[in-house]
């Protein structure tokens, strides 16, 4: 095997290191607004899940001071609402960026169901995750299975949580408020808002399941696939580990 030429300073290169050298192409995939949205969104979701869980099952009663001096549950709810607004505004900004951003900024919002090639690659990815395929393919953006998951968990999941969450928020904001005007119609679908609470609560677990899978798969693919994953969402660059074709 011919040793590839390299311009890495030689003082720290062992012979076995040189064997792994490739041309290391990198592509700028995720623009700054997409990356910022990702991390703000992640933080908002984390806050929303934790506070949302405690809104459904409150912490043990606390006796810090008089009821008027104490606002524990109020702060938990405030954090939930504040994070909910950040999530909503962020999501709207992300939709805007899908229009003005690059090709990869649009991948989140659609599933190319009409493309046979897409489904063929979904099946290939499933084979890769079932340990049947020996080597994964290279992808610049999301792989087809990831795109499918992103669409159902994030695009639909977050939309559902925003719509139901805003409708619940409208109950406190009351008739005549902006949220009641925009989202009050949701109550016309569920009537008893206890049902809407339950649906919103199940939605949280839908997002939690996504988080488990997403973090696991991102780290696993970072290690086992042929491209960078985790750092791509930090630097924006997708680097490939080898120069071979698919």
């Amino acid at each position, binding site marked *: 095997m011919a040793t590839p030429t390299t311009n890495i300073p030689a003082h720290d290169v062992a012979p076995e290191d040189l064997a792994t050298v490739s041309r290391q192409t990198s592509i700028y995939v995720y623009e700054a607004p997409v990356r910022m949205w990702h991390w703000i969104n992640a933080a908002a979701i984390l806050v929303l899940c934790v506070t949302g869980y405690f809104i459904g*099952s*409150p912490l043990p009663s606390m006796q810090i001071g008089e*009821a008027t001096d*104490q606002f524990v549950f109020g702060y938990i709810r405030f954090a939930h609402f504040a994070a909910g607004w950040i999530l909503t505004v962020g999501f709207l900004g992300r939709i805007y960026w899908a229009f003005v951003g690059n090709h990869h900024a649009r991948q989140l919002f659609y599933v190319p169901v009409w493309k046979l090639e897409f489904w063929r690659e979904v099946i290939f990815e499933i084979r890769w995750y079932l340990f049947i395929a020996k080597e994964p393919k290279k992808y610049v953006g999301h792989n087809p299975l990831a795109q499918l998951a992103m669409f159902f968990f994030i695009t639909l999941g977050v939309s559902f949580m925003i719509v139901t969450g805003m409708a619940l928020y409208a*109950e406190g904001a009351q*008739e005549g408020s902006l949220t009641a005007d925009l989202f009050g119609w949701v109550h016309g679908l569920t009537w008893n808002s*206890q049902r809407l609470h339950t649906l919103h609560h*199940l939605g949280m*677990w839908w997002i939690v399941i996504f988080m488990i*899978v997403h973090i696991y798969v991102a780290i696993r693919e970072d290690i086992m696939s042929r491209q960078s994953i985790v750092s791509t969402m930090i630097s924006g660059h997708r680097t490939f580990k080898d120069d071979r074709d698919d």
Partner: protein
Amino acid sequence: MSQIETFYEVMRRQGITRRSFMKYCSLTASALGLGPAFVPKIAHAMETKPRTPVIWVNGLECTCCSESFIRGAHPLAKDVVLSMISLDYSHVLMAAAGHAAEAALEEAIQKYKGNYILAVEGNPPLNEDGMFCIVGGKPFVEQLRHAAAGAKAIISWGACASYGCVQAASPNPTRATPVHKVITDKPIIKVPGCPPIAEVMTGVITYMLTFDRLPELDRQGRPAMFYGQRIHDKCYRRPHFDAGQFVEAWDDDNARKGYCLYKMGCKGPTTYNACSTVGWNEGTSFPIQSGHGCIGCSEDGFWDQGGFYNRLTNIKQFGVEANADQVGMAAAGVVGGAVAVHAAVSALKRAQKKTQDKVES
């Protein structure tokens, strides 16, 4: 059409003084959220307008609406409205019985055709051609359709008429059906609750009789002035909710201190009604004030939302009774377990490949 008495005449005939009449008008105005300027308007309407007849029919129900109605905080409201209703038809309260009662109903329907308000307590069961509720020898649904045909507007009293209530609880063997799903061509105002508050009932009737139109309704067709806010929005225990001070068990110290009943399954945050402002039994109390959480009786499907004492609703679709957290945690547990196994297999595969590569090279 024969001369119909005005409200004022009926009241005077009942021995009510003018002074008491004016008191009633101002009480009603404030109950309806109207300014003092409306007091003379209400008085004028009651003095001059021929009263609108009310026909009150009862289907599948428990009569708690009637029971609540006759316990109006302001005795005048009760006496006035009640005496006029019993003039027409209400088989719980009218003196007549049997054929005489049915004849009175028929007479009222013919006499006031297109003019009367039909108040419905209870709902019609539709299974077996409506045979689960017989009134005057006929299925109630027939009486309802017949009486509704000539009505100007319909009031659905209580959770039964509005939503179905406990007789419509899953699996609803009699197919008890709320009024608006049977009568679809008339304006319907829902006054839910099990029962509704007496002042709310008299307030709604007085508004409709005085202004000759339906009050402003919310999205579900309930009068917005009474169902515009949640119990929670006006609950006097709200500071304990915001503070995070909850009753943890029925016999704990927090219960004695009157802390928030949220953790005990109080449905105040999801229930639209006037209990926490108007109160019950002449404003004496309401469920939360007496130390018991709200069960959400003025909300659709309150009877099928799991236990009254659980914060999170049981979801029956999953076969066993479990709430959103239990379902979610089970699902997250399964996924988390699968991820762990998958990670382990991935690591093994990778180790295997590395050894293989070493052997090959």
